[in-house]
């Protein structure tokens, strides 16, 4: 069987223009050998879900520093489900208070990385948990 390449998407939902973190992650995923689609800032959940399906990614990494993650992250998961694409893993990161973790996990977010998480730990998580289809 030929080797499958992992494809991921890094996206920033909502009104949040602080994309330094997202760019560093995109670069780090590139160096890990992934193909990384970067959508840029100010994305609606609808744009993110549609792009994820068009790009056939294995994983969507959402970055949010504005505090709107409780609304935006679950909406992306929901839209993917509606598109029959719930096999796409969604993870999130940014300024996310611990008390919000359970709400996000319950909504279908598979992992959350907050400030201080090492780049290696995120790459490792993806390599362990994501199997390219």
């Amino acid at each position, binding site marked *: 069987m030929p080797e499958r390449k992992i494809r991921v998407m890094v996206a920033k939902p909502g009104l949040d223009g602080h994309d330094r973190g997202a760019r560093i992650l995109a670069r780090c995923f*590139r160096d890990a050998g992934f193909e990384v689609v970067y*959508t840029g800032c100010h994305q609606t959940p609808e744009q993110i879900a549609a792009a994820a399906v068009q790009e056939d990614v294995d994983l969507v990494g959402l970055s949010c520093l504005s505090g709107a993650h409780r609304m935006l992250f679950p909406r992306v998961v929901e839209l993917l489900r509606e598109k029959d694409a719930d096999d796409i893993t969604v993870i999130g990161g940014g300024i996310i208070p611990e008390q919000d973790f359970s709400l996000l996990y319950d909504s279908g977010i598979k992992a959350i990385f907050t400030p201080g998480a090492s780049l290696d730990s995120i790459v490792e998580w993806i390599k362990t948990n994501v199997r390219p289809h």
Partner: protein
Amino acid sequence: MDSIIKKICAGDVRSASRLIRDIEDKIPEARTKIKKLYTHTGKSFIIGITGAPGAGKSTLTDALITKLRKNNKTIGVLAVDPTSPFTGGAILGDRIRMQSHADDPGVFVRSLATRGALGGLSQAAGDAIHIMEAMGKDIIIVETVGIGQQEIDIINHAHSVLVVLVPGMGDEVQTMKAGLMEIADIFVINKANRAGAKQLQMELTSMLNLSSKTTDGWNPPVVMVGDAFKPETFTEDIANLSRKIEEHHVYLRQSGKLTERMHRKAMAEIKDALHTCLLEPVIKSLTAKGELEKFAEKIKNRKADPYSVAEEITQRFLKKEIEK
């Protein structure tokens, strides 16, 4: 009909994108699916956009999508970005410029990484175009990786090729060079609000006046496109560019050149397929058995030369001593 083929022909994005993925990953069953799809292809108009990194290819693509959507055309976009020669990873960032179309069901944007291909596209680009054609897209825009002077595979895939230039990239001699400067059906001088645009336009025009292309009925126009952040003038520039593309399409159909280009495309497709069906399995088999390494060792120590090795491998292949 295979259900996935049926879905793709009905325009299903998920099935289409997944098949493109399988082609990229060289899954053998994907080839079988392309065989079945093939009769449904060949009806879209394919526009190639090529030029140096940062010349504005993605921004132009985005603006053309907006323009073409106003005429209700359905659009497929393939956007190619480079693969790292060291890690195999890639940043696919062309989409950023086109995200305003992400949730428009009439637009399907798929990014491709070059995965080692050197002609400005990826090996999967040809079949990805076929898949978008089978989906029934009226127009397919293929944006190459940022290129230099010589990466011109796009001419084997597109009906109309746009070469995007920006001012300030060199003197007049650059416009005389072979390769890229010969393949344009339309030249775009992008960021034409910047210094040097008029100069470049003059150099291009005088180069084109010497060109033999003028005798076959089509003079590649030089289209100026200004500041993308000034909507009033930019929209007008894009409308002008879009008109030139349409004119070229009409010219291709009326002059019979379209058939000529389709023939060239078919020739290239055969060569690509031969590469995939003949050469790749041989290299794969020899690599798997460690033979290629041994040959390399011999060549390195000057115990053999590459031509003799290649001839020996060819002989063995013809005698079917190398299994696929």
